[in-house]
């Protein structure tokens, strides 16, 4: 792939890859190296780091390091599922709106505006208090927040591509509309959508961590970074580690994902620009097109 060299040349791409590798190793391989069970009480609450518990103990005297190592994969899994679902729904709605246009476009987009108008956390609060803090609900709620945003990006990209002559050509030969959407339009709106999906993943993490912090997501005693921050706030003065490390990890994850999405976007958009540059003096070209 010609994308790789360009990607690897950018500093932020390498940096974000390193960040994400750290976080992913922590969450995926980490649980196997946890020195203790995340649920066992191994000493007094809020002990500082010692030979026994490298990062000390938490509010209930459990091993902080073990809880950190085991508290990451859940949030990553939920964030990934919510992102996938939200992006998929957003793409379907956005492409439908952008391609069919007219009344369908208006209805879809105005409904999505209504969803956007609700404050996310309060809406989440409402549903969680009605149905209860179950993982699938968290996924649905977060996905529901993403869909309108993704739909806007997908619609804008679709509107641009629909005007391209290769789509017009497909119309002249009577290609079925669904096939036009899948074969002609979708591959050409991928680039902005990949970037968008990366950003959405970042938001998912922040949102889920936030819900967990508020106690609306993962329930105690299951280890979870967001929840740990909340549980151990009161002991900050005696042992800051059960708050600081999860905060750091969430920050690294968010920054890493964000930079990565950015780098991919730049590499891919850059690639597009590069391909135009192989037609030298693109200004001449556009000039004559206008003529």
């Amino acid at each position: 792939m010609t994308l790789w060299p360009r990607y690897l040349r950018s500093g932020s791409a390498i940096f974000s890859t390193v960040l994400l590798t750290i976080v992913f190793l922590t969450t995926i391989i980490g649980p196997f190296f946890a020195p203790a069970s995340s649920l066992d009480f191994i000493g007094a609450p809020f002990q500082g780091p010692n030979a026994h518990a490298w990062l000390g103990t938490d509010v209930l005297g459990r091993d902080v390091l073990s809880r950190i190592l085991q508290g990451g994969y859940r949030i990553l899994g939920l964030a990934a599922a919510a992102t996938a679902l939200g992006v998929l729904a957003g793409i379907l709605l956005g492409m439908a709106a952008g391609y069919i246009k007219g009344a369908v476009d208006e209805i879809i987009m105005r409904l999505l505006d209504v969803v956007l108008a609700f404050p996310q956390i309060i809406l989440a609060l409402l549903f969680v208090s009605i149905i209860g803090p179950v993982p699938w609900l968290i996924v649905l709620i977060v996905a529901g927040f993403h869909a309108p945003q993704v739909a806007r990006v997908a619609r804008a990209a679709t509107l641009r591509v629909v005007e391209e002559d290769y789509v017009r050509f497909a119309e002249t030969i009577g290609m079925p509309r669904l096939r036009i959407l899948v074969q002609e339009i979708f591959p050409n709106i991928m680039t902005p959508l990949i970037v968008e999906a990366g950003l959405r993943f970042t938001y998912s993490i922040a949102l889920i961590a936030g819900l967990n912090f508020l106690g609306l997501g993962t329930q105690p005693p299951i280890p979870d970074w967001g929840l740990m921050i909340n549980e151990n706030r009161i002991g900050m003065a005696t042992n800051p580690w059960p708050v600081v490390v999860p905060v750091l990890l969430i920050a690294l994850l968010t920054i890493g994902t964000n930079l990565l999405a950015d780098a991919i976007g730049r590499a891919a958009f850059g690639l597009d620009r590069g391909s135009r540059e192989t037609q030298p003096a693109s200004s001449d070209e556009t000039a004559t097109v206008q003529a």
Partner: protein
Amino acid sequence: MTAVDIIQSEGATNRLAINVRNLSVALAGSSDVVVDDVSFTLRPGEILGLVGESGSGKTTVGLAMLGYSRRGLDIIAGSVVIGGEDILTLSDEQRRLARRSLISYVPQDPATALNPTLRLRTQLSESFADPAEATEDRLLQMLAEVKLPATSAFLHRFTHQLSGGQQQRIAIAMAFAHRPHVIVMDEPTTGLDVTTQSHILETIRHLCRQHHVAAVYVSHDLAVVGGLADRVAVMYAGRILELGAAERVLRRPDHPYTQALIRAVPDLKGRTTIQGIPGQAPDPHHRPTGCAFAARCNMAADSCRQQAVPSLHTADNHVVQCLFPGEHRDRLAPVSNDWQAVPMASAVTALSVADLTAFHGSRQILQGITLEVPRQTCLALVGESGSGKTTLARSIAGLHHDLTGQLSFNGQDLPIGSRNRSRDLRRRIQYVFQNPYASLNPRRSIGRSLEVALLEFEKLPGVALRERVIAALESVALPARFASLYPHQLSGGQRQRAAIARALVLEPEFLICDEVTSALDVSVQAVVVDLLRRLQHERGLAMLFVTHNLALVRNIAQQVAVLQSGRIVEQGDALDVLERPQAEETLRLLRDAPHFELGETTERDLPVNRGIVAVAKGLQSTALAG
């Protein structure tokens, strides 16, 4: 006498407006040069036409003269001396000031160069450092200079209230405001209608003469440059291959590339058939050490390829970068004008349009269009931008739905909208789009694009599919290996041929070509036109050839229809209409179309069909006398 001597003696006798020496521009961080050792001088009031095809580096030279390089490019060597100052060695701040007083720039697209939120008064005042200078009188004078209404009411307008030509006049007024030594104009009339263009060129010429302002006019259009410039520089692959007086360069070109380029320009009088230049220009990464044109030159010798070709200065201040300048002119293959010998089309109508009226929303675009295209005939649809020619083409192709009227194909009713048509009808009528950069799906290989189109109509097994695709590619002179390439790997001309192949693979009977050559360089345009002409003969295709270029009509069409504001004002046999135009619009199009006359030498070199020449002379006396 060496080059330097000439320059010095010039400098001694005449003050130079600008002296560009050994200017080189390279891709950032590499030694791949985009502009290679370009030198020229201009005296005050002199206009240099900088001519070249896409990628020749002409725009880059124009910008480098202002000390500016586009992102990804670096000016690596040379000097640009204006009024005793070398623009390239100035500090950023000094250069900013120089761009106000010494050299100014007229961009290609005034619509994007002017600030849409400013009234013209504010816009024009911006060209003055001191706001006090921008008095009402001075601003009105600026308007008058460029032949715009010099009234306060006009100064109160916004740019969107101006036509494209008026916007360009504003940009020109701003460039002339400080009476700079030099003005760089980057295709300022591209995208304007021929009439507007000819008026603006007149204004530019007048202003340069009157205020002794030298101008570099960057253009791809030889005819425009021929009518405007005192001197012409022909660029190719970053080098100036030929530079000299306009008359000399365009009538008695020494360089084989100039000769070939001139042969590719369609002649309004139809004395010659346009001839393309095979191959394509080397890109900046693969520029040869020898002559850059050698690979496409049919008189290149080994010595051309082995060594860098020095610039040869001749006594009449003519510079040419060729080892065999002006030699072998006779070796160029003579071109005959035999396209007229098409067995004239059968009387059977392929396509007929009756009383077609089309709308865009509430705006009426076409009105009562009635048209017939006989089988095996090419009908050219000519008109200015906005005359509705593309809407008509799209209506026939089934892409435009908002219309009333009768369409029929081979006597069969042709429903409005492609989706209401039978599969067979959709196959038999094919559309080739204007912009080859947008008509092929960039995520799909060329071969796959053809296959996808074909699979909509025939369920073929893999091998048969592949054979059909390769046959179609070969019919447009693209080798089979192109099937696996992606659109961005192809040049504009190759893409357009691939797009034509995609239409041909469906074995159509009727081809709609919507300005298919307007995005292409002239040398490539000639290749594509030649291809279409050949296909028309071989396959007995009927064609609707939409174009704004009247000169091209003679090269391809047997019939012509002239469209003005949504109505057909004249139609008939192509030669009849071009020689004895009846409608005011046709006359105007013929009169304003930029053209230059091939010199006697070229005419002698090209033994063309004498009959056509005679007819063409008739045209000259009737159409062009006024």
